[in-house]
């Protein structure tokens, strides 16, 4: 009997040891990223990856697939999705594929306890939720105003940034009279800079604010949208550079950097460039101020975060651990300090450029908080804007036809 017991004991112990060895087996997860090369968060991603490895390297092996270029990563994820083989975890820097891929993304709700929930404000969770399921783990917030050149404003006799759009257009006239080109604009890559202005015009009323927080709108034939498109058309024709049509963000930014234009709409991640002397003159950053859009409008909303596609339970567990690490408050703060991107949690750091904190501070006084078109609108609408803006700018189509073209595109979905 004793012998038998001993035998059983040994057997159990052996099993236990075996299980322990099993548990120490390294789980591999696949993570594609565009945060490499020239990407402004490449340094952040490298630092975080090293930190994760130091902490979990003995049991989780992260296979990082470097995919250079934001759009290439999005395209690749779509191919993987159509083949039903999404990577273990990924983030697309806010680009929205959640609506398209909700059937293959892991519902993260069961893994989010109170502690994790406190890592991001409610609005951030909301943006990542579909049908009551949390499909993305937020870690940054979308806070965007616009930057202006104080020297230009002073020379044109403008005392402070405009509070209404009428005032804004009057200021543009003054800047023009003083010999400056008032606005940086673009049309390529969905006309990011231009479309931010467009959204801010729409979001200036309570009704518009709601619309600018609505996911996947299908009707652009609204008075507010057409009115905004009319203003954009006027801006293209009177207040911007000749290379705006067809230009991408980089050209809009370049015109602002060489102080040819006076204003550009963009987020605080741009601030570090203001100090980069390979791009701008030495004292450039001192000349720049940041403002709310007229009507006290700010972009201030959640951003789509890390998504999980792992299927195997062990892989899934490892992926969750990884995603929680990448979205922790510590990771968010590092992101803020290294890139100027606003954290999802309500935290701040003194270790950043003043303009970054000034931008965040503006949100407190904003009357209307809106979300940006790239996170909200259908991907094909975002793409369609690029081919329709040039027509609008040249007056080949009317603002009404512009709205109709986007409506038609949205309804294809």
């Amino acid at each position: 009997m004793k012998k038998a017991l001993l035998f059983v004991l040994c057997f159990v112990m052996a099993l236990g040891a075996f299980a322990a060895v099993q548990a120490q087996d390294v789980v591999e997860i696949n993570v594609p990223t565009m945060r490499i090369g020239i990407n402004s968060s490449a340094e952040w991603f490298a630092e975080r990856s090293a930190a994760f490895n130091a902490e979990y390297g003995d049991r989780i092996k992260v296979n990082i697939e470097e995919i250079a270029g934001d759009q290439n990563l999005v395209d690749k994820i779509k191919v993987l999705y159509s083949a039903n083989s999404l990577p273990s975890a990924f983030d697309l820097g806010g680009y929205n594929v959640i609506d398209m891929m909700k059937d293959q993304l892991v519902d993260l709700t069961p893994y989010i306890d109170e502690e994790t929930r406190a890592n991001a404000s409610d609005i951030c969770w909301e943006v990542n939720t579909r049908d009551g399921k949390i499909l993305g783990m937020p870690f940054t917030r979308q806070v965007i105003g616009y930057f202006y050149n104080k020297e230009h404003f002073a020379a044109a006799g403008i005392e402070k940034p405009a509070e209404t759009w009428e005032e804004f257009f009057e200021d543009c006239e003054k800047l023009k009279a003083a010999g400056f080109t008032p606005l940086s604009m673009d049309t390529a890559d969905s006309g990011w800079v231009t479309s931010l202005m467009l959204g801010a015009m729409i979001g200036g009323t309570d009704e518009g604010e709601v619309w600018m927080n609505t996911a996947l709108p299908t009707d652009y034939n609204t008075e507010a949208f057409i009115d905004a498109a009319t203003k954009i058309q006027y801006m293209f024709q009177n207040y911007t550079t000749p290379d705006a049509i067809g230009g991408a963000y980089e050209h809009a930014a370049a015109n602002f950097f060489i102080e040819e234009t006076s204003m550009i709409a963009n987020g605080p991640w741009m601030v570090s460039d203001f100090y980069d002397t390979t791009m701008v003159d030495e004292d450039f950053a001192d000349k720049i101020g940041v403002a709310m859009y007229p009507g006290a409008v700010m972009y201030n909303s959640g951003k789509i975060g890390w998504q999980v596609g792992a299927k195997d339970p062990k892989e899934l567990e490892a992926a969750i651990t990884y995603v929680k690490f990448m979205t922790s408050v510590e990771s968010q703060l590092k992101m803020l300090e290294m890139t100027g991107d606003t954290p999802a949690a309500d935290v701040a750091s003194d270790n950043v450029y003043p303009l970054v904190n000034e931008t965040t501070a503006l949100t407190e006084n904003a009357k209307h908080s809106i979300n940006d078109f790239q996170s909200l609108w259908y991907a094909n609408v975002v793409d369609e804007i690029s081919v329709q803006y040039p027509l609008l700018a040249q007056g080949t189509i009317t603002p009404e036809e512009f709205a109709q073209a986007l409506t038609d595109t949205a309804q294809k979905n």
Partner: protein
Amino acid sequence: MKISKWKIAAFLTPCILLFSLVFVIPMLIIIVTSFFDWKAGGIFNFVGLNNYINAFTADKRMHQAIINTLIWVALQATIHVSLGTLIAYLLSMKVKGWKVFRTIYMIPNVISSSVLAVILVNVFRAKGGLVNGIITKITGTTFTKNWFFDSDSAFITVTLTWLIYTGLIVIIALAGFMSVPEEIIDAARIDGASDAKLLFRIKLPLIRTVLGTCVILAATSKLTEFELIYLTTGGGPGDMTINLPLYLYKTSMIDNNYGYASMMSVVLVLFGVICVFLIHRIFRMNEADI
């Protein structure tokens, strides 16, 4: 000389295998799915000819894409090949530095189209672009035409990105001209043939299969052109510079409407088959020379 069947098969089999793996099997998948409403999110329903009917009746962008594609094919098959053949002919006279020229003309074809697109976007840029810079220097007044994005110049500017780069045609046609046996030329000269007569009556007819190859390569390259349009105008402004492959790409990668995209692939391949068939006939390519 009779060649046994298995020897013929031995020559053909490796090619057929490779061809099947990369083209036939995927193409079968494409043909089948072109009859389905297949979208992202697990939608997969048989709809018969609906995709085709929709494309040819209701879809205006599709019509524009077809028209543009055909215009570009026609321009490439005529002007592009003629220009290349002309250059090859001039070089075949062994003008000074002909080897250097031949190498230089090929360079735009040697570098990848994505690089070429980046370069040309800058060359034709409204502000600070090379073309406008030169015009400004010559006329003395600031010139700011937005070549790729003005409605009246977008199509022609996109066309220029490939029409003038004839390097490939030049080297193929030049090799053709050089392969014309000198005995034939000498004989014709003794008969008193002029340069023009020599070219049109003897050289061109002799290299017609080579020229046919050039026309096929040129025409079909425009049936499948994608990168140079996508990376310059993206098909805009509006639908002015869209073609079938670009619309196909947008439908598949952005709209995620795979069934409809498959239909476009089928239409494109049908166009191509007709094209190649016609060119084969025109150049009598299945008859051997001499």
